[in-house]
């Protein structure tokens, strides 16, 4: 395994490469604008093609393992729905903002700092992380705390494969994740909408559960910026806000981390945030949800339909108290 230590001066601070990358992005963006004008003018391309064209660096995962046991066979939401309807406050509060502004995020070079109760702390590069386990497709339901849901064909590998690398010690009871803070890349961070960096956490048994995914892409391609490039958490039985995006820091800790939304409004958002139709959000019912693409609401399932896999993790716990 290759562990790269951060240099004293970050590459991005000294190298004209950054300018080069920006220039390329600018040229690409100009091309997209021209293409968009052309498309609107003549309607030559379908919208999905147009959206794919906006991400010229999008790479397909060459060998994607398909058809695992956890996949749902429900109808997938479109690439367009999944990439234009996002809660990612680092790019603005509107659900269309991330698709509009996330082009400023630079998912390469990217590294993740690992620290805390583990045998192998250090700084790890995304190129290496991508190689640690075979990348597979996981078709999961995603249920937002705001009572909408979608079905996403994620690409990634089990979070346990990722975390095991760092050899967490027996004192590691929880794992904490943090999102990048850089207002130049994440313009929403110029406003104190939330306390940055966005922070989330899982109990170790939750993090090591086979359903929990290190998300590296969707629809067979590397993760679009607005969905949390280059790596994110995907926990399908919890409300979407638990599935933290664009992770730069992983810390193994003894005490329960204080996640951002709990810090923001503890009466409304807890640490566990398991999808639970019996425990309402104080301001709205969690009993039903609107699946994007459907007009009427459908019933919300316990643990978002993953009760068979995860209910045992919470045996004996009062889920009204630990919401």
């Amino acid at each position, binding site marked *: 395994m290759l562990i790269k230590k951060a240099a004293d001066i970050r590459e991005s601070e000294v190298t004209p490469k950054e300018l080069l990358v920006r220039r390329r992005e600018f040229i690409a963006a100009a091309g997209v604008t021209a293409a968009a004008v052309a498309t609107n003018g003549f309607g030559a391309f379908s919208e999905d093609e147009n959206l794919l064209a906006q991400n010229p660096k999008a790479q397909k995962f060459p060998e994607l393992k398909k058809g695992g046991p956890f996949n749902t066979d429900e109808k997938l939401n479109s690439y367009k729905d999944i990439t234009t309807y996002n809660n990612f406050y680092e790019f603005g509060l509107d659900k269309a903002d991330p698709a509009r502004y996330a082009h400023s995020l630079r998912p390469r070079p990217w590294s993740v700092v690992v620290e805390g109760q583990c045998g192998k702390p250090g700084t790890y590069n995304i190129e290496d992380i991508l190689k640690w386990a075979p990348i597979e497709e996981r078709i999961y339901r995603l249920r937002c705390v705001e009572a909408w849901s979608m079905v996403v064909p994620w690409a990634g590998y089990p979070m346990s494969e990722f975390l095991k690398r760092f050899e967490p010690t027996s004192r590691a009871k929880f794992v904490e994740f943090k999102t990048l803070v850089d207002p130049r890349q994440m313009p929403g961070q110029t*406003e104190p909408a939330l306390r940055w960096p966005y922070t989330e956490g899982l109990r170790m048994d939750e993090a090591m559960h086979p359903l929990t995914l290190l998300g590296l892409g969707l629809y067979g391609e590397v993760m679009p910026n607005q969905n949390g490039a280059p790596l994110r958490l995907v926990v399908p039985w919890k409300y979407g806000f638990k599935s933290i995006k664009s992770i730069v820091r992983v810390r193994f800790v003894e005490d329960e981390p204080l996640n951002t939304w709990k810090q*923001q409004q503890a009466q409304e958002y807890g640490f566990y945030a398991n999808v639970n139709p019996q425990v309402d959000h104080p301001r709205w019912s969690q009993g039903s949800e609107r699946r994007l693409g459907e007009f009427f609401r459908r019933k919300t399932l316990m643990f978002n339909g993953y009760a068979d896999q995860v209910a045992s993790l919470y045996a004996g716990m009062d889920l009204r108290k630990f919401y």
Partner: protein
Amino acid sequence: MTSTQWRRRVFKPAVWIACLTPLGYLIYSLYLDLGANPVETITNTTGIWTLRLVVFTLAITPLRWLTGVNQLIQYRRPIGLFAFFYGLLHFFTYFFLDHQFDFAGMWEDVRLRPYITAGFTAFVLMIPLALTSTAGWIRRLGGKNWNRLHMLIYITACAAVLHYYWKVSIKMPPTNPTIYGAIVAVLLAFRVWRYFARRAASEV
């Protein structure tokens, strides 16, 4: 043109067009692209325009005092009715698409969730105002009673702001609900000030 002609041919149609533009734009944008969550788009658009038009009706009287242009009062009724129209669309989007016209389910929502309670109150209080908006009803009730009844719009405005404020999660200033709250507060404060100023004047 005489001023009546101006009013009939220019100002009234302009008010109608202005008030119908948000709906037209909503239909047009959904026709172009339904988006990921069209129900949310419809709900948010009709909701915010209800509040905006309520604010416009509330602004007319203070504007009259400030400018002395008394004809402004003629546009209060159409704007108020359009506010009710958008409120009706907003309510039925919720009642139909969230509750499939199930009254018991909706009532539970109204009882349990403060932001729904506030929104429902705001909407229900507009119903008598819309019904009594005709000249016939003004005559039947008498100007004084009619005016008193139509003070309900003050409660509607406050409830609508609360409804909006409680719905959104991010309360950092300056969010929209805070701005609308401030505008409504100023418009109502104007009336309070005017009331006391007049009373003081009559005592002299």
